[in-house]
């Protein structure tokens, strides 16, 4: 299983904080996004934002970064702390 967590405005627009995906057929961040688009077509507009950032196991990652079963993948808008 891959745990996918959402933060801030994205969490609020999706109305959920975390979901779990079967890891079968998933090897990169792009695969995770494709799977989410298929399973949750209503999230399309939020999840196509070119501004979304992604972290894998609490480290910043990219669309082609590898994802494995047991990983925690986080999707969030650009950060605004400080």
């Amino acid at each position, binding site marked *: 299983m891959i745990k996918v967590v959402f933060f801030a405005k994205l969490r609020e627009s999706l109305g959920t904080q975390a979901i779990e995906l079967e890891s079968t057929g998933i090897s990169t961040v792009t695969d995770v996004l494709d799977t989410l688009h298929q399973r949750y077509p209503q999230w399309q507009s939020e999840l196509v934002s070119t501004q979304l950032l992604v972290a894998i196991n*609490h*480290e910043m990652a990219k669309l082609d970064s590898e994802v494995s079963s047991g990983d*925690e993948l986080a999707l*969030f808008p650009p*950060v*605004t*702390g*400080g």
Partner: protein
Amino acid sequence: MIKVQTEDFDVNHEYHRLAAKSEAGAIVTFVGLVRDLNLAQTVTALHLEHYPEMTEKSLRRIVQQAKQRWQLIDVSLIHRVGTLTVNQQIVFVGVSSRHRGDAFAACEFIMDHLKTEAPFWKKEHTDSGETWLDANEKDLQAAKRWR
């Protein structure tokens, strides 16, 4: 010293901790405060969300990069989360060094990277409702300067 906390911090205490080392010749500190006006809306409060498992790791990495790049004696970084009101302190960065150039550069480097990499998000409460803040193009440019 890196902390993520809901409580306020004491600038005086943090400053004196940095100044206590006798080889320190320069202390630069930055404090970010909740401003009363943002984009002409009157801000009444600010909510800071973060990604607890990732936040400290992210801040430690930024501080580590600064320590590799400049000759620093010590760095303190405190970032608050939760609900803050106008004029309250959000973030403290304090850097001690033998020479001022290193302390200034490292302190600004840490803030520029925190602003674009550390997983914090601000939601403003104004007279006309709640709004998540958008990232600032100026902040992205500021972080790129250091490459």
